[in-house]
């Protein structure tokens, strides 16, 4: 069987690898972005000089030939679903028996005046990074529009080259649609600590051009005009549906799929950033634009393609990121305003570390960590098993995954719980340490 995958990001490549593990089907991956798979989330480190581009390619170049995964670097112009044929810009056509569309996202542009001027760009693809290199030669001022993960990454990148940055955030606090208030405030402070001109509750009105259609300044909703030589548009991403243009494949914002990642056309699947679930999962968005979910979807999809029809099971939500120097991990339902939820929150006096546990009377439902590492498998297990807050607190040491010698703060969190709940006297049973380590190594051997 001929399996063609459009897109060589984490979703497309995970699908290809898992299909190869399960079958001898012919696999072809088409991407116009790059010949070889690279780690998109590490692109920023290439710009900052931590890595070279070849360092962020997780597999060596020989890997694809050895595993009989054909790579084509070309642009898909049309999918002929009747004849199961894909036309490429380079002039050739590829025939498929089953097709997986994992075309990823594109940066949002909301029709701002001046959004197509030179020096205005998003940050998503390898080409965006190359453009950024060109656009930031000998410049000193930039305005970033949008306060999400990509916005703060772009800010860190530009600061590494001593470019001064103004950041316009529409919300009243950074990324507060996802982060609870206290954590969001922590990141506000941290952004400013890095000498970024953070403007909250501030929107972009217009981008003003100068000579040669180059950006000259932006005008904000507060009436300010900020001079700049680059505008980074990082107000989120939306599904890249360009490849299904003029086809009968159904789409809304993304390519519509069911829980088996099947589109309305037989033998055509979509997964990752570009897919939109017709019927969403509880507490989940219909479009999931996260590295991990792309990977999990692709693993399920590989089974289906190889004959074992398997539904995507999202499992307990998790994600992680880094805001400059503060690491962030989240598990389960946080900041979702679940009925009767309670939040137990501790913040370090440095204002750079915090632990949040969200729970209801039925058990713990979410964790949010800033500047502290907790073990994913432990947190997820507690959530799945609906462990009570008392149980989780007693055993909290098991979750701690900071390096040795780091100060442990679980006892501080317990103290807050005990003082907030009169009559409760929870004692930390397990601190992390050698005995935990011994048990673990026994299990793994």
């Amino acid at each position, binding site marked *: 069987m001929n399996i063609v995958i459009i897109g060589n990001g984490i979703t497309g490549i995970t699908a290809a690898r898992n299909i190869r593990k399960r079958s001898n089907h012919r696999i072809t991956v088409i991407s116009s972005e790059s010949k070889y798979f690279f780690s998109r989330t590490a692109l920023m*480190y290439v710009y900052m*000089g*931590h890595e070279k581009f070849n*360092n962020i390619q997780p597999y060596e170049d020989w890997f694809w030939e050895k595993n009989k995964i054909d790579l084509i670097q070309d642009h898909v112009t049309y999918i002929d679903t009747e004849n199961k044929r894909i036309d490429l810009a380079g002039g050739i056509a590829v025939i498929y028996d089953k097709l997986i569309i994992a075309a990823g996202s594109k940066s949002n542009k909301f029709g701002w005046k001046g959004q197509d001027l030179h020096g205005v760009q998003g940050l998503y693809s390898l080409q965006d990074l190359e453009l950024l290199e060109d656009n930031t030669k000998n410049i000193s001022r930039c305005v970033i529009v949008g306060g999400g993960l990509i916005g703060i990454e772009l800010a860190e990148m530009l600061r590494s080259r001593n470019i001064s940055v103004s950041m316009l955030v529409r919300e009243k606090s950074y990324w507060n649609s996802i982060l609870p208030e206290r954590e969001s405030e922590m990141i506000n402070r941290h952004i400013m600590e890095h000498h970024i001109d953070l403007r909250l509750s501030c929107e972009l009105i217009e981008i003003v051009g100068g000579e040669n259609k180059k950006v000259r300044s932006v005008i904000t909703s507060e009436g300010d005009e900020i001079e700049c030589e680059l505008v980074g548009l990082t107000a989120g991403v939306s599904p890249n549906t360009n490849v299904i243009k003029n086809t009968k494949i159904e789409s809304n914002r993304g390519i519509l799929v069911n829980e088996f990642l099947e589109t309305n056309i037989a033998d055509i699947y979509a997964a990752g950033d570009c897919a939109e679930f017709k019927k969403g999962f509880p507490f989940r968005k219909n479009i999931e634009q996260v590295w991990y979910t792309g990977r999990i979807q692709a693993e399920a999809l590989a089974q289906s393609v190889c004959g074992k029809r398997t539904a995507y099971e999202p499992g307990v939500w998790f994600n992680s990121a880094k805001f*400059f*120097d503060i690491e962030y991990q989240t598990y389960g339902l946080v900041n979702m305003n679940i009925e009767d939820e309670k939040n137990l929150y501790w913040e370090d006096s440095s204002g750079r570390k915090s632990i949040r546990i969200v729970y209801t009377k039925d058990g713990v439902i979410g964790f949010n960590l800033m500047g502290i590492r907790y073990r994913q498998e432990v947190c997820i297990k507690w959530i799945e098993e609906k462990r009570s807050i008392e149980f989780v607190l007693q055993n909290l040491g098991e979750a701690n995954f900071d390096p040795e*010698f780091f100060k442990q703060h679980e006892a501080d969190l317990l103290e807050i719980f005990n003082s907030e709940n009169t009559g409760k006297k929870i004692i930390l049973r397990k601190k992390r340490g*050698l005995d935990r380590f011994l048990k673990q190594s026994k299990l793994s051997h």
Partner: protein
Amino acid sequence: MGALIFFFAQLKESPVAGVKKNNLMFLSMTNRGMLGWMTAVFLTGMYVLIYWFPELLENVNRIFDPLSYTLTGNPANQWFLYGTLYTIAILVMGARMIIHNRHNKYQIIRTISVMFFQLVLAYLIPMFIVNGFFFTYFWPLKFEYLFPSSYDYLIQSGGIGMFMFFWAAVMSFIATPILTYFYGKRWYCSWVCGCGAMAETLGDPFRQNSDKSLKSWKIERWMVHSVLLIIIIITALLWINSTNDNFILKRFYK
């Protein structure tokens, strides 16, 4: 000293602690540029001089005479020069490592540990207490420590010698396997060993240049295991030989 002042000056430049590896890949020194190659040639040249042309270093040795007389009572030779420069490199670049990782208690303690082991146990003690014996190097790294000849030499030199031989044997065959089982090789390589100390201090700004290909990993595995095998065979042969009146190696003697 100059380097130390430079590292402290960086504190001012990046006042927010955190992993900072910005621009490493753009610098000639750390991205195999001209400066990097010149440094490589210089360092390799140093080793060539020390091992094969020590007489060319005589003038440099004299600079270290005062220090050498204080520590050992003898004039400096090329080995004293080497040990001193090696230790200075670890101390200065160790300070840099601590400044760079000041947000990370593990790295601070670990770096102090390698600096201590290098300065005290691999430099000062061998220098002026027990001539040439390193308490921190064990067989098979220092394979001659468990040769019959060392055994004879140490046992004959009385109590302290006996202690040193048993120390070497216990560390090699009991402590190392146990500690490695629990902590991996890091307990030695990045906490104790002088080679690791060099890699984790002076080597830190260059670690991104290591070859991460599957091929280099395969070569590395073949190399370390064959070296280990050779050391085991040599050590075993020497012991069998010494207990059998030169039975095995007799024919090689002239």
